[in-house]
């Protein structure tokens, strides 16, 4: 069952079921649109060459749906889109299947291309969904973070990690929000006021 928010020309949803490209395209299909751009993100069988057995996604669902809505509304206005739809699959997603679909329609193709890419980047940096990669064997799973392909957090890590080495020695400064894979702290809301 999909949990969804439908708001005029924006559709966002989270579901445990396999994703269907045709149905998400139909969400943005319109006689006013001359282009639909569809992005399908699929699950890879490795991370940096290391075989991945399966992927599992969890979410803070009400918060994620709000963030997805804010992203879509902001892009709808910025690129004068006809419509935009975004759906993310949760739970176990077998390798090679879609974990996310984004469909964007606009009168002309350029706006749809651009908005489609921005929608994905915004989603990856802000939407409250987490991916766990299971490598199999003794290593256990790793919660991935969408920051610069960083290695993520080992679930079973008991030993203390050494601070990262900077050019002048270990980096001991505390982290700031925005540099650890989060976007900056912004109060996204459903009124779509997160203008750049």
């Amino acid at each position, binding site marked *: 069952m999909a949990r969804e928010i439908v708001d005029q020309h924006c559709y966002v949803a989270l579901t445990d079921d396999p994703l269907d490209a045709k149905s998400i395209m139909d969400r943005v299909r319109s006689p006013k649109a001359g282009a639909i751009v569809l992005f399908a993100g699929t699950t890879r069988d490795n991370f940096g060459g290391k075989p991945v057995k399966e992927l599992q996604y969890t*979410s803070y669902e009400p918060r994620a749906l709000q963030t997805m809505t804010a992203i879509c509304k902001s892009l709808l206005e910025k690129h004068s889109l006809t419509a935009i739809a975004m759906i993310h699959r949760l739970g176990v997603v077998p390798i090679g299947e879609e*974990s996310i679909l984004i469909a964007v329609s606009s009168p002309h193709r350029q706006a749809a291309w651009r908005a489609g890419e921005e929608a*994905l980047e915004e989603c990856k940096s802000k939407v*409250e*969904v987490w991916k766990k990669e299971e490598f199999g064997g003794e290593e256990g799973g790793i*919660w991935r973070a*969408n920051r610069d392909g960083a290695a993520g957090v080992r679930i079973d890590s008991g030993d203390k990690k050494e601070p990262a080495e900077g050019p002048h020695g270990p980096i001991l400064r505390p*982290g700031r929000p925005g540099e650890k*894979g*989060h976007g900056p702290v912004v109060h996204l809301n459903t009124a779509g006021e997160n203008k750049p």
Partner: protein
Amino acid sequence: MSTASKPPAGHFTILYFASASSYTARDSENLPAPLPVSKLFEVLEVKYSGIKPKILDSCLLTINLEYVDVTDDSASDVVIKECDEVAIIPPVSSG
């Protein structure tokens, strides 16, 4: 699954996701309210030794679905109230 049932009187609910959930070995729990937000990480560090440097320092915080900047001094007088829903938000990895 992610939104827990209403906490008992005098408590708030805290939700743990991803690495925070693995570290605490739970998805959620109820903690005594009221609690100044500036004291939350200390309370969690007492309960789950090592969680602050290993997990919380790279996490964001929401109260009733709104982000609260814990590094901002102006947020230091925010108080978590009875029945609030607090969530620890690790770096996201959607897509």
